[in-house]
């Protein structure tokens, strides 16, 4: 099983890059180039992983593409275990692409403490990649913390006016979530050690633990709380609009594109498999909270005056649908939710990137200051229209496929929830139409003479555009990757994946 530590390299390459960036603190350009090179190299390594076919049945009878297991802190039962299946593969692809793009996004926007910025950025990438690959629960926890802390600094140092408030809020929410999870994690470890006599944090072994129901419910609640805060699930979402509004563009992009996804991923990979009975009891609640989130955030998004805040609320609304897919838990909805995670990562990141580009030019994001942008910035407006249409689920673009799979799959089990979900899509149309009406259409209020997108900016947007079209028109390969990973006999003990 132990081969060359390819996954380990992919995870830690950004961290080495981060340390190297600190060495070049005096040369900003080198820092940027270094960070970009590191992320692109990582991307190449990830692309290489696509040549693999699943052939590992262990651990836990999975359809693993690659498993790397090294001893680490044996006395405590902590091992350095990374494993890759189709789900992780798509998510680390998204991570490295977004990672490379964020370096490009920050090229002109970040002018102070450039080395430190890239240090935090790259360290965060290691955290996110680790979360998506770790199969040792303790290791997972370490990566989980590693991805949060740099974000605190990104918002707090390079953010906008109310950055300290937003950063502290972000930190308090995240830490209180992960603290509770950590306690439950230790409890789980002790309980398992008690039952089997083995000290281990390995996921596939901890899955074997048997609980009495109250304890299982408590543990599940503790895990789910940490993940629900990250997703964020209604009513724990209030940190997100502030964090998005105050974060620099790169921060918003990573937040929307990656950090929120880690919450859903962890729910799917850890919380549900570890505590299947509790999870089953909790699914109605998840379903209701997911649906509430769709409507609640979708409704509030209509009232927003700040573009970034509007997209932040839309992000909460979209995540609600993904939660619905997880809660219904059949092959169609899970495939849909996983695909929708990638889709949301592309679409919402692109919208945040575009808003960032606008902010750099006009120094405003208020809808009342905009209008008629098509006249002055036609290329920017074209992209903005494109990604707005993707986010309302126009067929042929990426979000549609995910939404359709989630809702059709939901309909087989919960027709009313699915019908509500379809209606929820209408709310998205309403606020997106208003956003377009007041930004790119209407009378031009911006003085002409502002330059349209540059080559660097097009370089950022074109991969996302291609991704949106690719996943909208030919999502087959991605869905196959998910399908293979999901049809594992006991991905979830006692809660088999229901095929409709």
């Amino acid at each position, binding site marked *: 099983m132990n081969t060359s530590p390819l996954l380990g390299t992919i995870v830690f390459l950004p961290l080495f890059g981060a340390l190297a960036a600190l060495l070049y603190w005096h040369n900003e350009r080198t820092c940027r180039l270094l960070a970009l090179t590191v992320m692109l190299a990582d991307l190449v390594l990830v692309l290489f992983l696509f040549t693999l076919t699943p052939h590992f049945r262990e651990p836990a009878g999975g359809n693993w593409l690659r498993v790397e297991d090294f001893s680490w802190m044996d006395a405590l039962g902590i091992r350095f275990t990374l494993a890759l299946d189709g789900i992780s593969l798509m998510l680390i692809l998204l991570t490295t692409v977004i990672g490379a793009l964020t370096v490009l996004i920050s090229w002109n926007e970040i002018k102070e403490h450039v080395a430190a910025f890239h240090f935090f950025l790259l360290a965060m990438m290691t955290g996110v990649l680790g979360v998506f690959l770790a199969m040792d629960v303790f290791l997972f926890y370490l990566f989980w913390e590693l991805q949060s802390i740099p974000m605190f600094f990104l918002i707090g140092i390079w953010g906008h006016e109310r950055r300290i408030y937003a950063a502290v809020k972000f930190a308090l929410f995240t830490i209180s979530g992960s603290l509770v999870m950590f306690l439950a994690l230790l409890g789980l470890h002790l309980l398992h050690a008690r039952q089997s006599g083995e000290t281990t944090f390995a996921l596939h072994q901890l899955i074997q633990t048997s609980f009495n129901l109250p*304890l299982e419910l408590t543990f599940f609640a503790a895990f789910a709380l940490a993940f629900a805060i990250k997703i964020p699930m209604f009513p724990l979402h209030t940190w997100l609009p502030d964090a998005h509004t105050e974060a620099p563009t790169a921060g918003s992009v990573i937040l929307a594109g990656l950090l929120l996804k880690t919450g859903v991923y962890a729910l799917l990979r850890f919380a549900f498999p570890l505590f299947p009975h509790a999870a089953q009891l909790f699914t109605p609640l998840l379903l209701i909270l997911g649906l509430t989130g769709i409507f609640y955030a979708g409704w509030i998004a209509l009232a927003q005056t700040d573009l970034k805040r509007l997209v932040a609320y839309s992000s909460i609304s979209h995540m609600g649908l993904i939660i619905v897919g997880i809660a219904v838990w059949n*092959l*169609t909805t899970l495939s849909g939710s996983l695909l929708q995670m990638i889709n949301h990562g592309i679409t919402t990141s692109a919208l945040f990137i575009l808003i960032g580009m606008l902010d750099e030019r006009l120094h405003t994001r208020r809808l009342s200051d905009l209008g008629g942008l098509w006249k002055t910035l036609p290329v920017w407006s074209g992209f903005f229209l494109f990604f707005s249409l993707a986010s309302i689920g126009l067929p*042929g673009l990426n979000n549609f496929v995910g939404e359709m*799979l989630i809702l059709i*799959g939901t309909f*087989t089990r919960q027709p009313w929830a699915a019908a509500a979900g*379809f209606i929820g899509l209408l709310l998205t149309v309403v606020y997106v*139409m208003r956003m377009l009406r007041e930004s790119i*259409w209407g009378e031009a209020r911006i003085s002409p003479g502002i330059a349209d997108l540059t080559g660097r900016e097009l370089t950022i947007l074109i991969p996302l555009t291609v991704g949106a079209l690719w996943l909208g028109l030919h999502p087959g390969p991605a869905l196959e990757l998910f399908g293979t990973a999901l049809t594992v006999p006991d991905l979830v003990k006692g809660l088999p994946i229901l095929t409709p």
Partner: protein
Amino acid sequence: MKPVLFLLLSFPLLGALLVSLIGRHLSRRAVETIACTAVAASFILALTAFLLSGQKAYSLTLARWFAAGSFQVGLDLYYDPLAAVMALMVTFVSSLVHLYSVGYMRYDNGYIRYFCFLNLFVFAMLVIVTAGNLVFLYLGWETVGLCSYALIGFWYEKPEAANAGAKAFVVTRLGDVAFGIAIAICWVTLGHLSVSGIHDSAAGIDASRAGIIGCFLFLAAIGKSAQLPLSVWLPDAMAGPTPVSALIHAATMVTAGVYLLMRFFPVIQASMPLMAVIACVGILTICFGALGALIQKDIKRILAYSTISQVGYMFLALGAGDVAGSLFHLIAHAFFKSLLFLGAGCIIQALHEEQDIFRMGGGLRQKMPQLFWLFLAGTAALGAFPLTAGFFSKDRILLAVFLQPQAGYKLLWVIASMAAMITPLYAFRLFIIVFFGKSQSPSGPAKASPTSVPDVMTRVLWPLAFFSVFLGFLNLPLNWAGKEWLAQYLAAVPGSAMELHASSKMESAMQLGSALLTIIMVIVACIYYGTRVESVETGTETLLSKMQALFRNGFYLDRLYQTRITAPYRAAAGLLWQKVDAGWLDAGLNQSARSFLTLAETLRLWTTGRVSRYVSMMVAGFALILCSLTLAWWYLLI
């Protein structure tokens, strides 16, 4: 067949891609040429497919799209006589509208955006027509909605145009929610989404299940086809360029809803109550549109209300189970209504963007003689003047309604016949006021004399005028020694085989009756509108003026939605944000964080600096930790 259909779809898509991606680097002439050629090529392919196919139905798959678990969707096509006729009509009218647009948009700088969306629209419309499964059809369905949105709001700097685009998108999207649910129900109850599969299983499903599926499809159709109660977007959509109104908001997209129901008619047919509902919505919309058209002043709004009304006839025909009659009227309407819109476009441009028929100065008969005859052809067909296309198509619908055995349909027939008398009235009102009206209008001085419009704009109207007049021969009734060619051609399409069992005598009597009524109404219109100018607003609230205001404002439906739905929804969004999200939820969570801070402040008081105090605190702390660990340990063990 596969390559033909593939190319039929790809040409307009390719045109749209070329125009949008490299249009900036090409000359204006090149962009226009690409756009027109793409659609013309599509027309030739539609003709080829029509000639090749005979009366067969083809199901084929272009590519796989997505699949998860047992759910699979491909880019499937389904081509049968129904699709063939629609594809011919769509590509033919589109080609003419593209040519016309070259003239109409000659001074506009947004021509790249215009032709890109217009080409994309043709592609999407053809997807609707030839789609082989519901999800692919939905792709076309949404994409025509997008193109309609972008083209209504084409002059986005005008607030009313930008608003109208968004409104059209949201209102039609309301229907699309139902479309999505229909897809889900089809998948769950029937197990497949393909057109042929749904046709096959329609025979076996019970009426209630068919009724549910059909009901959601019908809701989707209502949105797209601007039927009551979702008709409010279409009059506003006239803010777009006139060729767009002709193509999208008269000939093709608004009839897509009718086509959807025709496509899945075996399902619709299985539920009698649903058929009755469709007929009733149709008849209400016919009256609503006709009364609205009778009183409008804006030439495009008259035509828009008229479209709503005419599409209502198509729904009525479906409600009476007559697919061939519905399609016949759909095709006829596509020709005469696009002719009228394009003719109106000529007038509007010649009169420097004047759209009020009372301010057109009248007397256009001398100034634009060619257009006079063209417009007359369109008006006669719309008014169902004997022997024109509209006459035969409308008559067939009335006959089909009359022949339905249920008593309720007789009442529908009476109302439909009465509404059919209003049609010539408003059609000739428009015609007479525009071409013969008095030049001294009370509402303002007449505009300067008309300028000329490019030849291409009038030339493309001739084929449309030809079909408006002579298309009736496509489906001549049996008592005319006709063979009902269209109905025969469609006979193989599931759900559309319908014999109108009427004696030749009865048919002739009905035709004679409606011909006489129409001629009388035309004469009435000529006398009434020919001799008077626009009524002066007296300011007194008579019953008549109230009625007029009611019709002019579309029965205040729009205002109702504005005040009862849109405004409260917006206000509630603000309240939800400020009061609930920020004021309650966020503040509550912040407060709990702050209470920890208060706790910490209290704890800080204990840092007194006395070592003995610290030691005792430490001991207490250790004791606490040990106790809790023991407790936890004990709990875990049990």
